C-alpha cells in the first residue's frame, strides 16, 4: 500500500474519531498524518501483534492531545483494532482524549504534561544502548513544547551522550493553545538552534511525503554519533480545505453536519 494511501487512511480514522466526540484535536491529527505515515510505514520496525516486542522502534508521543492522531496510526498499523474507533474518548475506552501509556497498546509514554517526552526519550535511548539494542527512539513533540525549559535540558543531554539512536520530530504548525507559536517563545529559526546544540538537524515540509521519507532516511543513516531532529513545517487540518481555512485550529468545534462534509471531501481525495 502506498504511503499516500496510508496517510489518507490515518486521516480517515482520525476524522471518524473526531466525529465520535464532535470536537477535539482533529487539526493536529490531520497535520501530522503524513509524519505518522512515514514513521510507521517507512521508517519504523514494529510488530502489529506484539506492541511490546523488544526490538521495536519506540514512538514517544509527548503531546498527549495528539493521541487522536497516533490512535489513527496505530489502527492503520494493526496495533489497535479499527472497531474501537467508536469508543474514542468514551468511558472505559482504551483511547482516552489525552494519550497515556497505561491505556493503549502502542502508546509508549504518558504525554500531556508538555516538555516531558524528550527527557524520557534520552533515558530510553541510553537504556537501549546499555542493552546493545539497535532500536530507535522517535519522539514527536510540538513547537509549543519548545517553550518548555525541560525540552532544552534534554536537547543538551542527548548531545552529551551522543544519542544517535534518538530522532526528534518537531511538529512546527505555528499553533499553540493561545495562538501562533511564533508570537510566543518560538522565536528565530529552529534549525540553527538545534545545530548549535550539536544535533543533526533537517527542516522539511511536514506534509510532503517524499520530503519526509528523504529526511527520515537521512536521520536514520547519518554517520555522526549525534542525536537527530527533523523540524516539520505542517499545516493544521491539512487535507480538509474548509477546516484548513479556519483561524482557530488548536481545539476545534466541528458542527455535526460538517463531519459528513469533511469525510466526503476526504473520500474524494482517496488515492488509488
Amino acid at each position, binding site marked *: 500500500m502506498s504511503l499516500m494511501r496510508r496517510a489518507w487512511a490515518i486521516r480517515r480514522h482520525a476524522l471518524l474519531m473526531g466525529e465520535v466526540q464532535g470536537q477535539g484535536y482533529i487539526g493536529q491529527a490531520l497535520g501530522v498524518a503524513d509524519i505518522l505515515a512515514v514513521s510507521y510505514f517507512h521508517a519504523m520496525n514494529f510488530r502489529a501483534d506484539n506492541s511490546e516486542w523488544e526490538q521495536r522502534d519506540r514512538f514517544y508521543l509527548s503531546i498527549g492531545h495528539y493521541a487522536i492522531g497516533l490512535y489513527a496510526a496505530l489502527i492503520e498499523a494493526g496495533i489497535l483494532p479499527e472497531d474501537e474507533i467508536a469508543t474514542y474518548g468514551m468511558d472505559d475506552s482504551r483511547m482516552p482524549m489525552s494519550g497515556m501509556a497505561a491505556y493503549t497498546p502502542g502508546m509508549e509514554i504518558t504525554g500531556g*504534561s508538555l516538555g516531558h517526552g524528550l527527557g524520557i526519550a534520552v533515558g530510553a535511548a541510553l537504556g537501549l544502548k546499555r542493552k546493545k539494542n539497535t532500536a530507535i527512539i522517535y519522539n514527536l513533540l510540538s513547537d509549543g513544547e519548545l517553550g518548555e525549559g*525541560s525540552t532544552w535540558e534534554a536537547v543538551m543531554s542527548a548531545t552529551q551522550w551522543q544519542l544517535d539512536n534518538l530522532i526528534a520530530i518537531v511538529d512546527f504548525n505555528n499553533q499553540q493553545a493561545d495562538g501562533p507559536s511564533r508570537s510566543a517563545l518560538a522565536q528565530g529559526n529552529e534549525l540553527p538552534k538545534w545545530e548549535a546544540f550539536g544535533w543533526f538537524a533537517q527542516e522539511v515540509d511536514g506534509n510532503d511525503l517524499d520530503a519526509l521519507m528523504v529526511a527520515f532516511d537521512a536521520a536514520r543513516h547519518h554517520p555522526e554519533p549525534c542525536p537527530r531532529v527533523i523540524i516539520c513545517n505542517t499545516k493544521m487540518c491539512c487535507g480538509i480545505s474548509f477546516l484548513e481555512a479556519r483561524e482557530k485550529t488548536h481545539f476545534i468545534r466541528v458542527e455535526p453536519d460538517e463531519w459528513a462534509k469533511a469525510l466526503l471531501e476526504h473520500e474524494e481525495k482517496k488515492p488509488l
Partner: protein
Amino acid sequence: MSIPPHSRRKSKYEPRSHAGGMDSVRTSAMIASLDAEGRETIDAPFGHTLVDLAKTRDDILGLSADLSKYTDLHIFAQAYPDRFYQMGMAEALLMSAAAGLAREGFVPFATTYAVFAARRAYDFIAMAIAEENLPVKIACALPGLTTGYGPSHQATEDLAIMRAMPNMTVVDPCDAIDVAGATRAMMNHEGPAYMRLLRGKVPKVLDVYDYDFVLGRAKLLCEGKDLLIISSGIMTMRALDAAKFLAKEGVGIAVLHSPTIKPLDQETIIREVQKNGRLVVVAENHSITGGLGDAVAKTLLTHDVFVPLRQIGLPDEFLDAGALPTLHDQYGITVERVVGQLRHWLEG
C-alpha cells in the same frame, strides 16, 4: 499611571562589624554537627550499600544532577563508572531520563537535594515516574533542617509534597543503619520510592536496638509508661536521647520509630497509641504541615482513636540561615529542647 514602590524586605539583622566572638558557631560547621559528639559514625552508607547491591544486580544504575559527591553517589560512580550517569544541573531531565531507563528495564537511583527533587522536579516525578509506577529510586540529601544555607537548601516540606503523590513510597531514615536498610528495601520494592538521604559521616544509633529497616513498618525501639513519641528521621535519634535523659528522672518515654512515611504503618501506630493513656507526641525533622504529624493525626482520627496529640517539628515558615546547632536549638529540635518540651507537656 503611578505604581507604588515595592516595600522591600528589610534585613532582620543590624549591620555589624565583627563576628560574635569565640563562641559564635560558623555555618560552615554544618554537616558534621547532626549528632552528639563522640557518637560512632559510618561513612557514606547509601553509596556503599548501593555498590554492594550492584555486585549482584546488573540493572542498578546511578544518576545525579551535578550532586553525586554531595549525595554519596560518587562512591557508586567510582566503583561502576559505566553505570553512572552525570545528567548535569538539570533536575527535570534527571527524573525524565531515569523514567526512560526504567522503561527499558533498569532500576535507576537518582540523586539530588531534596529541595530540587520535591520542588523543581515534581511534575516530572509525578508524570514520568509515579503515574506509570516505574521503579525509579530517588535519594535526596539535605532533608528538613540539615543545612544552614536557608530556604533554598532546606527541604522542610518535601515529605508533604512527596506523600501527596500517588504510587510514591516515602522514607525518612534515622541513621546509617536505617539508610543502608532503606536503600536495600527501596531496590526490592517494585514501584517508585523517595528516600531522605543522610550523607557523609552518618551517625550509627539503631544498631543497639535489635532493629532492621522494614518498608512500611514502624518499630517500637524503647518502652515507657508516661509518653509515646512517634518519630522519623533524625528526630528518632533525638527522641532516643531524650528518653535516656528523662529515664534518669524516672520518666518513661516510649519511642516508636516510623521511617516509612508512606505507606504509614497504621496498625502499629494505633496499637501503640492505644496501649495506655500516654500522651502522644509526633516528632519530625519537617514542617508541622503535611508530614508525619499530619499523617499520624489523620490515622488516629479516622480510626476513632481520640487521644491528646502534640507535635514537635519545624514551623510552617521559611527558616533562617546560620549554623546548624544554633538553628536546631532555635527551632526546638535539639535533645535539650525536646526534653524541655516533653517536660512541659508532662507537667501541664
